[in-house]
């Protein structure tokens, strides 16, 4: 039998290191996506290993495979040297693997201790809760997990609930803890506390897999880093001390050949959109935008680059009237449009390609016709004396179907049956047909195949030529750099700087600069650093 010190063919693992987990060639497919494409992953004894990647990179999927929730289509998993074949999370826990999901799985009406004991064989009949309260208290003491054993879960903050989840795993004797984006729900101080706990756990010989898409956190906590991009490993087990933010950023967002688009030279016109010192909160009531300013002129595409979750979504919502700003203002063609309503934006010619195509951009059970008139149904010729002229609407829908190549048997089909690319064409058709003066496009190509992406790009460029101001919010750096005339970089709700892209397109230096800004270095600092080096 293999010993714990077995050697591996994986070059990222130093010879002789004790391996806790070894995943080889994991393939996991979902309808239409290859979430994990022959992924290798190696976890050592006593390390914090970060799994880094953008949204949708396949991080959660990979870890769900490890935690016994999903079965891979192919690939092998070894835990502590033994081949395992989990068919449920229970098996994984028996092998010492516990996962804390993005959504907690606690019973709100029960106490902390009760939640921790839930589902265990012991205690059998009589709950000697007092005794167990002590055990829980000791455990939380040991790992710095402040939480009151007798508190009911519903009384706890999100951070405390997370601690309960960790305690649950510790109580079950987990020595491999997977945490799926644990910091997403935490306040800065809580993140510090969490990191202390993680270090305490590692000191006791446990290993931790820390999923994140936030680079600075990864640099702060991880010993090694594995980067996933579009289901594939782009960097395996990098030593966190020997790598840099730029390097990680590059692995995460990719640096593929920048494709050439037929982008005509365009002199931008008047300022259409001005965002001035805007502050706003996210859904959890945390500050998402911190005095953000930018402007967009007619006939230009302005890109907004940044790692997901740095305020992009909130910015798009503030501009389109779907979110209140707590400070600052948004001006469209000289008129203040923030904190009014989505309708005001629509009437003033703001079009919006939302990030969430099915959740926000369309009504799934309604027909293609009903979906394309969403912004036009209030006006003639579709609206007539409070009624809808269905003939006009159907004709309109058919015209859009033709000119935007929406592949669908007829316009009465409910849009939930459309593929991602077709659905996006429905949204684009609707948003462009209103001849917008400003277009806010959020992740317009996410999840589309290459052909569909090209179509979207061509449409955006033709909008630019016809004089619309376009704010393109995307996590795809190549896309931003090839389409945009200028690129702003957002980080924690602030603009880190702006990069102009001339006629020559983007350069590798530009990418490095943007990458640095994406990880929180302001442009002035980068420039200063360069100046010093050149002296």
């Amino acid at each position, binding site marked *: 039998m293999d010993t714990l010190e077995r050697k591996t063919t994986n070059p990222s693992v130093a010879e002789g290191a004790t391996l806790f987990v070894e995943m080889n060639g994991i393939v996991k497919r979902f309808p239409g996506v290859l979430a994990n494409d022959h992924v290798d992953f190696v976890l050592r004894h006593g390390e914090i290993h970060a799994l880094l990647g953008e949204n949708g990179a396949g991080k959660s999927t990979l870890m769900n495979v490890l935690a016994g929730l999903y079965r891979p289509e192919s690939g092998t998993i070894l835990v502590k040297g033994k081949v395992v074949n989990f068919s449920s999370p229970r098996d994984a826990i028996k092998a010492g693997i516990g996962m804390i999901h993005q959504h907690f799985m606690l019973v709100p009406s029960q106490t902390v201790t009760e939640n921790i004991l839930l589902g265990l064989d012991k205690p059998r009949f009589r709950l000697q809760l007092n005794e167990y309260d002590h055990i829980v208290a000791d455990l939380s003491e040991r790992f710095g997990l402040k939480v009151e054993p007798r508190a009911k879960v519903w009384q706890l903050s999100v951070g405390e609930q997370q601690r309960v989840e960790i305690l649950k795993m510790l109580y079950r004797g987990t020595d491999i803890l997977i945490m799926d984006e644990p910091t997403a729900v935490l306040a800065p101080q809580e993140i510090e506390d969490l990191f202390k706990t993680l270090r305490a756990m590692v000191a006791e010989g446990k290993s931790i897999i820390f999923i994140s898409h936030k680079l600075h956190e990864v640099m702060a906590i991880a010993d090694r880093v594995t980067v996933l991009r579009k289901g594939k490993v782009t960097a395996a087990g990098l030593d966190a001390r020997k790598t840099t933010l730029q390097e990680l950023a590059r692995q995460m967002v990719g640096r593929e050949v920048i494709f050439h688009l037929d982008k005509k030279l365009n002199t931008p016109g008047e300022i259409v959109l001005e965002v001035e010192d805007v502050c706003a909160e996210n859904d959890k009531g945390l500050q998402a935008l911190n005095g953000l300013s930018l402007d967009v002129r007619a006939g230009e595409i302005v890109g907004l680059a940044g790692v997901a979750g740095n305020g992009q979504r909130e910015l798009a919502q503030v501009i389109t009237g779907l979110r209140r700003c707590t400070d600052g203002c948004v001006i469209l063609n000289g008129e203040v449009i923030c904190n009014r309503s989505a309708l005001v934006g629509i009437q003033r010619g703001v079009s919006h390609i939302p990030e969430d195509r099915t959740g*926000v951009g369309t009504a799934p059970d309604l027909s293609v016709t009903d979906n394309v008139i969403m912004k036009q*149904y209030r006006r003639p010729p579709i609206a007539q004396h409070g009624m*809808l002229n*269905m003939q006009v609407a159907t004709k309109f829908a058919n015209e859009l179907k033709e000119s935007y190549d929406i592949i669908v048997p007829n316009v009465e089909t409910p849009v939930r049956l459309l593929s991602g690319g077709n659905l996006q064409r429905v949204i684009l058709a609707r948003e462009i047909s209103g001849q917008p003066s400003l277009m806010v496009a959020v992740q317009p190509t996410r999840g589309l195949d290459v052909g569909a992406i090209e179509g979207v790009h061509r449409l955006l460029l033709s909008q630019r030529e016809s004089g619309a101001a376009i704010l393109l919010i995307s996590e795809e750096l190549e896309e931003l750099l090839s389409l945009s005339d200028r690129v702003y970089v957002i980080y924690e709700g602030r603009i880190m700087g702006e990069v102009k892209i001339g006629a020559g397109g983007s350069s590798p230096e530009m990418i490095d600069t943007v990458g640095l800004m994406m990880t929180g270095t302001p442009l002035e600092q980068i420039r200063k650093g360069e100046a010093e080096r050149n002296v």
Partner: protein
Amino acid sequence: MKEPPRWYPAAVSLGAIMVALVLGGILIAFAGGDPFRSYAHIAKASFGNLGVLSDTIVKATPILLTSLACSIAFRMKLWNIGAEGQFIMGAFGAGAIVLTPILPADTSPWIFIPVMMLAGILMGAIWGFFPGFLKARFNVNEIISTLMMNYIAISWVNFFIFAVWTEGGFQMSPKFPENAWLPRLLDYAKTIPIFSGLTTHLGLLIGIVAAIVLWIVIYRSRWGYEIRLIGDNPRAAQYAGINITRNTVLVMMLSGALAGLGGMSEITGMVHRLQTTPLAAGYGFTGIIVAWLAKLNPLVAILVSILFGALLLAGREIQPSGVPKMIQGIILVCLIASDFLMRYRVRIVRAGEEA
């Protein structure tokens, strides 16, 4: 994913009703009855001749209006289960015109009936407004609030018929003057003899017109479009600039108004006096079932209401009269269960195989 063919939902619903009838038959057999004879009897008792057909339609009329009330609210995913109370308040509003009296007893029916209709609509709309407003403003669960308001409505009307408009201490108001009755077929028996004894009243026409208008509103008007959009995806509706708060209140008022119109039609077409027992007969709740069965389509609701009218009527004929109620219940359970088949595709996975 493949879309099931168009006939699929209808077939599943029909299948559910068949299953319900079979289950009902088994229960009847257990109770010592003969299921075939019972069903034949129900059919004969409800559709057997012109007289019972008319009675079926009379029963169907209030159900039709309450089911329209439910279907418009459900369309926006507002779970108004207070059609019962709104119905009773509509009857109260219509009754108040006669009993207060707001109009003298010798007013022409041409004035009486429209005024009573308006009063019924108004009271129903008010009864829908409160839960709608609470939902829109404070996010109060409308299921709870509409349910509670049913009891308030009954108590409210009880107070008036006990204390204010009582007829000689009985729990009912005096009979309305005939000017305030909706015209019935039997009123024309002199010219058309075949109508003699038929109590089908103008309420049927009111219900059908309401159904047609509602259909046009839902599928052909700007407002209906907004309602459909909110019902299907509220976040998309918000994104399209639609005011959900306002529509919540308006749709609850429309829903209440339709139920209120139903109450008015029942009291002026059938009961002819204010009295809680025949009014609080569960029409509001049957309306929920019918709306569901009709897949929230107002025109289909006309047919389904008549079916349920027949079931109710049959209750008069069969002993024990609980049987049709029980069948109704079974139909509802089967339909809800069949909804599962509409939403999900059933795939049989053998043990060991991966899903």
